[in-house]
């Protein structure tokens, strides 16, 4: 007697004695030894708990013996039951997604994310739900997963494709991603991605600076430093050049702007405001909405080239009014000399 036959005998005895769990395990061992054992599969149909497993067992029986009409009939019943279950489940998850959309609109992003994450694990989502999932999640793997699913359903979605391209770029350049996390105040993630960047061969030249960053961030972890949002940093850093220009202009117009209006010089104050903003903004690495408004074609949301261009434009806008101011001052100095001598 072979081992397969012995196990089958033991399984049948256990099944008849109503020892269902033992019988199921023994039948499973049998089909492991011989996947074409029809009797074992037949018994398993009745012994397995999970609907999908039962369907699989039926399919195996029909695969071995296509003329087994009773099993075919039972399989049809199981499939109908499964279909009904799926419809019911989809209805529940659709309701869950709708609730998540409402919560997201109401600003409860975390709760909405929890609901949609749960729904995505258990059911197929609509394009709108995948889009929302990508938007809500701050985890890059989840975002990529959601965007891939979204693009599978709507391949013509240009925005999703661009975002996916940008995320893929950041995945290949973990030091950029780490800098973004650092700016967002997520120090753990920043350290994780800086460590990942250390392993990238193309970043070998930056190894020392990245290593120094990691040490500083680890040091910061213990210091409980408040996070300052990139928006605040932009507003703060942008104010310096205009303030200097304002003071200088006040001196130039003899403290009293009404006595000598100099409208062009005052108009140029706006240049320094905008220029200061551009310079400050160029130093921020977060994938901020404004990057997309200004550099729609830049897949990374802020390449070094884009940032350099922005900073250069900013410096030009800032320097121009200062140069004009100095030019006016030089002219005045010549007038003064002519008057004096």
């Amino acid at each position, binding site marked *: 007697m072979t081992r397969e036959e012995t196990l089958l005998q033991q399984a049948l005895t256990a099944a008849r004695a109503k020892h269902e769990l033992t019988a199921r395990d023994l039948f499973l061992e049998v089909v492991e030894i011989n996947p074409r054992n029809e009797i074992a599969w037949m018994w398993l149909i009745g012994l397995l708990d999970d609907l999908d497993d039962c369907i699989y067992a039926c399919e195996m029986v029909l695969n071995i013996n296509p003329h087994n009409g009773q099993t075919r009939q039972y399989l049809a019943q199981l499939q109908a039951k499964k279909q009904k279950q799926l419809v019911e489940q989809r209805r529940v998850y659709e309701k869950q997604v709708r609730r998540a959309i409402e919560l997201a609109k109401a600003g409860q992003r975390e709760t909405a994310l929890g609901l949609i994450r749960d729904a995505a694990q258990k059911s197929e989502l609509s394009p709108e739900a995948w889009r929302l999932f990508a938007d809500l999640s701050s985890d890059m793997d989840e975002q990529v997963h959601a965007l891939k699913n979204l693009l599978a359903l709507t391949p013509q979605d240009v925005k999703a494709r661009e975002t996916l391209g940008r995320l893929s770029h950041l995945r290949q350049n973990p030091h950029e991603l780490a800098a973004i996390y650092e700016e967002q105040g997520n120090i753990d993630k920043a350290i994780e991605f800086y460590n990942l960047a250390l392993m990238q061969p193309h970043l070998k030249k930056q190894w020392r600076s990245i290593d120094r960053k990691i040490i500083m961030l680890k040091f910061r972890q213990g210091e409980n430093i408040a996070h300052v949002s990139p928006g605040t940093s932009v507003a703060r850093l942008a104010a310096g050049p205009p*303030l200097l220009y304002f*003071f200088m*202009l006040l*001196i*130039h117009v003899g*403290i009293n702007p009404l*006595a000598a209006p100099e409208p062009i010089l005052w108009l140029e104050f706006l240049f320094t405001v905008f220029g200061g903003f551009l310079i400050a903004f160029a130093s921020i690495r977060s994938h901020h909405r404004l990057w997309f408004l200004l550099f729609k074609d830049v897949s990374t949301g802020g390449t070094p080239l884009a940032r350099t261009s922005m900073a250069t434009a900013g410096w030009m806008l800032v320097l121009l009014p200062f140069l004009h101011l100095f030019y006016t001052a030089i002219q005045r*100095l010549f007038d003064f000399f002519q008057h004096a001598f």
Partner: protein
Amino acid sequence: MLPLNDSEPNRYSAFPFMTLTLILVNTTILFWELSLPENLLRGVFYIFGSTPSLMWARQGAGIISTITSMFLHGGTFHLLGNMLFLWVFGRRVEDACGPLRFLLFYLLAGTSSDLITALVLPHQDIPGIGASGAIFGVMGAYLLLFPEGHIRTLWFLYFIPTWPKIRAFWFIFYYLGIQIIPAMDIYLHSAQYSVGYWAHIGGFLSCFSILLFLRPEAFARYMSNVAV
């Protein structure tokens, strides 16, 4: 009482590029001044020093004289004193800002000191020269950013030199304090002094603007009450 050094190391950068550049530029200009005949030097001070009465009358070099006055000094000791203060207090303030932003802050402090002088003493026709207005701004910024900082200071007790480390807080307030009485004397009694006390106070007042020039991390540290 003179500051000697601040022994705390830099946090962000190893080399105080802009502080040293400013010291170098000021020193070079003093050498140039020393090479000029006295009459010409007086003319240079008049044109390129900052004179409130000219400023109000919109005459002279205007904003150019505000900038140039920050780099002119009346003599070697004037320069040495100012540069010593700039070195002691500027190094760590520059470290917290970065060189370019530190330069902007330095110019802003100098400009602010000129503005305050012009507002308080609009009829003054003696040109103001020296970096001390801007340096008071740097000292104020130091106080704001490093309130726990300690400065090694040279004292003379009955002609015996000592150099204890004292809190920057006391040192800076001492220097600010000795500006106030003569400044009030100038304002109330039109007294004549050879020191620009109001320029010092004006520069000091601009110290709050340092918050606009700090590196993001230094600002976050400042906001968290952690050593910048």
